[in-house]
């Protein structure tokens, strides 16, 4: 057979594109999947937007913090849906009993991870862009006006979400669909600890130690500093990147270890619990 030269190399963009294309075909063929990508982010944004309006009307100090709740919920969605987009795409392969086909193909684990990262960004964009436009129309809040800072926030949140999703994917390979609930719920552990809607100072001192171990905490603090004090805290972003580098490295190592364990236990062909 005639094989593309690029497919003999360790990392083939064409194999990555094949997996992205597979999920694009799936999204394109299923309007409920597309609708689901926009539904919850829109509901969340509307709820927090109205809450913010109410609080701002009744509290002078909160009035200064215009848009922080809406920004928080939208950045939280980047973190949550970044992980969920990756994990759901991974689960789709298990539901479809297609994982064996992929594991026995020349697709390498690192290419699979790369493809799922791209898919998670596509899924997030489908949900996030319309909702951000809705926030402008409804509440006059323009998320994109944060500009460069927003790009840094996004990148840090993406890195955390992918790190968590990669580790969960390893657990799914090793333990089958018995670990499915982790894919749906693990990120909610981050919700109180990373101080999405309130400053870290609100937490008890001992819990603040744990909060500062998580990269998103720096992003949400940085977001509040930008929106309330008009200050971009580069120091917080540098610390977030450093923590993310460690977290991402640990997640990839954990995934490869769990994949190896799955080969040892013979669970790669199993899709059940």
């Amino acid at each position: 057979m005639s094989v593309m030269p690029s497919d003999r190399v360790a990392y083939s963009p064409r194999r990555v594109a094949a997996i992205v294309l597979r999920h694009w075909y799936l999204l394109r063929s299923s309007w409920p999947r597309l609708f689901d990508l926009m539904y919850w982010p829109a509901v969340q944004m509307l709820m927090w937007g109205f809450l913010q309006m109410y609080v701002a009307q009744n509290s002078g100090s909160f009035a200064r913090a215009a848009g922080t709740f809406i920004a928080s919920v939208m950045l939280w969605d980047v973190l949550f849906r970044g992980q969920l987009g990756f994990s759901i795409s991974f689960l789709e392969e298990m539901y479809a009993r297609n994982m064996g086909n992929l594991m026995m193909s020349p697709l390498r684990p690192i290419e699979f991870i790369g493809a799922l990262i791209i898919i998670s960004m596509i899924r997030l964009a489908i949900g996030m862009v319309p909702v951000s436009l809705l926030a402008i129309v409804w509440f006059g809040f323009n998320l994109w006006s944060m500009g460069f800072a927003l790009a840094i926030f996004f990148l840090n949140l993406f890195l955390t979400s992918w790190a968590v999703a990669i580790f969960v994917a390893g657990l799914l390979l090793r333990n089958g669909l018995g670990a499915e609930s982790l894919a749906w719920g693990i990120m909610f552990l981050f919700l109180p600890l990373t101080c999405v809607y309130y400053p870290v100072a609100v937490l008890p001192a001992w819990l603040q130690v744990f909060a500062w171990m998580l990269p998103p905490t720096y992003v949400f603090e940085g977001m509040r500093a930008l929106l309330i004090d008009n200050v971009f805290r580069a120091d917080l972003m540098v610390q977030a990147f450093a923590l993310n580098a460690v977290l991402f490295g640990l997640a990839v190592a954990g995934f490869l270890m769990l994949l190896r364990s799955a080969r040892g236990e013979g669970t790669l062909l199993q899709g059940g619990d």
Partner: protein
Amino acid sequence: MHAPASNPAIAVDRLVKAYKTVTAVDGISFALERGTCTALLGGNGAGKTTTISTIMGLVEPTSGQVTVLGAVMPRQRHLALHRMNFESPYVNMPMRLTVRQNLNVFGMLYGCADVAGRIRALAEELELSDFLDRPTGKLSSGQKTRVALAKSLINQPEILLLDEPTASLDPDTADWVRGRLEHYRKERGATVLLASHNMGEVERLCDRVIMMKTGRIVDDDTPERLIARYGRSNLEEVFLDIARGRGEPREVAQ
């Protein structure tokens, strides 16, 4: 008993695979010459699926070694995986995707240079043209099997691993699939390893049979010689003798 192959497509050497409480494969060795078709037979729990999974690099051996086209599995699997393919009832193709979309994805994964051309050729050869643009999930069992066969041939593999390739097919479709497999093997000189419970299929397609029981190889010969040696009229009777411990299978020297 088969003489060792000099440049085997697949070489299994003292393979052991033990799980926590079970030894699924217990020190088996065999080598498959290139261009041959071999059946791996045995009752449920004999160790066939574990053996095939190890050959595909899905399972790490507890001890021993499996080499495929010279690559040690699973460590060097990326040297071999694009030159082999498989069909198994344990996996499906995504049901919402059309046949063409699925074949396009797998063609890209397996590195086909001209995926569209390969899909056209397979559609003609395996009579898929009428339903190429239908969702895979909406096809009949026979059509799905043809699509799975097309996926397994998308990269024109040198090694084809087949696990129950005609299970749940009507006799006519099953016969058609066997004909296509025979044709492919002769045309490409491919090595085929087949696990099946259909003894007629094995007699028709295979020039060698490896019999497994409780993780071990209990016999290994051509279908004709096995039938003659066990004094039976067909392979199914030989299989039953071995499975029920009625015959006198000799221990095969590894």
